[in-house]
């Protein structure tokens, strides 16, 4: 009886398997932040974003670019550095329950990665299409690019690498080596950012018009396929979780 009481107390004090607060706050963080960004675009895209030689363009758009680049480097360094610095050096000796808890935390990271990919690859990329097909561009740093390429892409890259680092440093499942599809799922979409170099170089030849299906854009397409590698990560997770859940009940 006494032992049972102790067990119940231990359960009550134990952290929950899924930290719902982190899941909801993380989801809302991206949603609220990007809603603000969309509001900013709506207000300052038309009023200050049409002529890159205008002083107000420098004020509202180039300063936005400089600020976001600094914040991204700081955030990436701090987050990735913290994940690596606080890694579990005895990851193979954790209890099954702790492992399950970490899988849930890992899935919070993956949910955020999917959410960030949606905003970057879907929302802001197609938005860029309507901006360019409507407005003649006179700079590589158009309002839509400052948000799409230099904000939403770095954010999903930061999230994806953080997710990968979490798995690699805290989960026994990923200690066998480097998970090929996890790397494809993170590095492939990451490569979309360097591919911006090709895109901008190409557009210096064809500044005046926008054909979205132009071969110049196929680099984005190729690296976008890598998002499918999330299926390999899901399959690995399902195998690991099935093993954790199907063992003898304690």
């Amino acid at each position, binding site marked *: 009886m006494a032992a049972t009481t102790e067990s119940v107390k231990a359960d009550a004090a134990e952290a929950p398997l899924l930290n719902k607060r982190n899941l909801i706050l993380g989801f809302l963080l991206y949603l609220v932040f990007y809603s603000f960004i969309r509001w900013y675009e*709506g207000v300052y895209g038309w009023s200050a974003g049409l002529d890159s030689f205008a002083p107000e363009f420098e004020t509202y758009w180039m300063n936005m670019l400089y600020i976001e680049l600094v914040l991204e480097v700081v955030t990436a360094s701090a987050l990735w550095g913290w994940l690596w610095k606080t890694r579990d050096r005895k990851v193979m000796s954790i209890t099954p329950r702790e492992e399950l808890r970490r899988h*849930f935390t890992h899935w919070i990271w993956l949910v955020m990665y999917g959410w960030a990919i949606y905003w970057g690859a879907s929302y802001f990329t197609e938005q860029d299409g309507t901006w360019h097909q409507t407005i003649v561009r006179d700079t590589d740093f158009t309002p839509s690019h400052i948000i799409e390429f230099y904000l939403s892409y770095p954010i999903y890259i930061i999230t994806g690498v953080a997710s990968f680092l979490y798995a690699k440093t805290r989960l026994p499942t990923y200690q066998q080596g480097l998970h*090929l599809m996890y790397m494809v799922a993170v590095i492939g979409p990451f490569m979309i950012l360097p591919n911006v170099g090709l895109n901008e170089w190409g557009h210096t030849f064809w500044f005046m018009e926008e054909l979205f299906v132009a071969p110049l854009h196929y680099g984005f397409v190729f690296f976008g396929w890598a998002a499918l590698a999330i299926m390999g990560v899901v399959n690995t997770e399902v195998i690991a979780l099935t093993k954790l859940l199907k063992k003898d009940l304690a």
Partner: protein
Amino acid sequence: MSASQSAVRSRAEAVQVSRTLDWMILFTLFTAVLGGYHIHYMLTGGDWDFWSDWKDRRLWVTVAPIVSITFPAAVQACLWWRYRLPIGATVAVLGLLLGEWINRYLNFWGWTYFPVNFVFPSQLLPGAIVLDVVLMLGGSMTLTAVVGGMAYGLLFYPGNWPVIAPLHVPVEYNGMMMTLADLQGYHYVRTGTPEYIRMVEKGTLRTFGKDVAPVSAFFSAFVSIIIYFLWHFFGRWFAKTDFISDDAS
């Protein structure tokens, strides 16, 4: 706790954990596939999908199914062969359509002020449902590629007919004969998309008149079969669970 012990303490908790993870997995899979599929589709067939005056009887009908059967085939390859879930194509297409509709409302209309009946996305669901049903009933990749892939291409134009037909009625404007969709493009000026880059009704096939759309759909169906095969294997590759050595030496 021994290594053979479960991470959960009761069957009820196991069920709850499993269901919670199902939702988290579904959300991640849905949004990641949505993102990858959307960037692929908008940059390989997007211009025909963005604007009603690009939605012609020839290139739209040809291009859209060919470039859009890709991700459905790949997702089917994972969900059916791993989990026996015959919903891969429908899930992929629903993701794409959700991303597109959000964008057309909030950005094409909300930011650059085009009316939604000028920028609505193509309808891909009928083909996707047939693709899933053929896979479910046949259980065969070859059958799905040949029968489902062909149906996917052939169904595209009929699937879009109810929404595009009113915009394809002829109108005379300033002495010129054009469609209502052409007239929309004429009025809603896209400075970055001048008329000379609009690829519609190219070539002499248009002189066939009524035959253009079915011939284009049939060609599209043929290529869709081949693309299905290719992307099925892409899907299988992307679903792998392999590790590679992280030993740098």
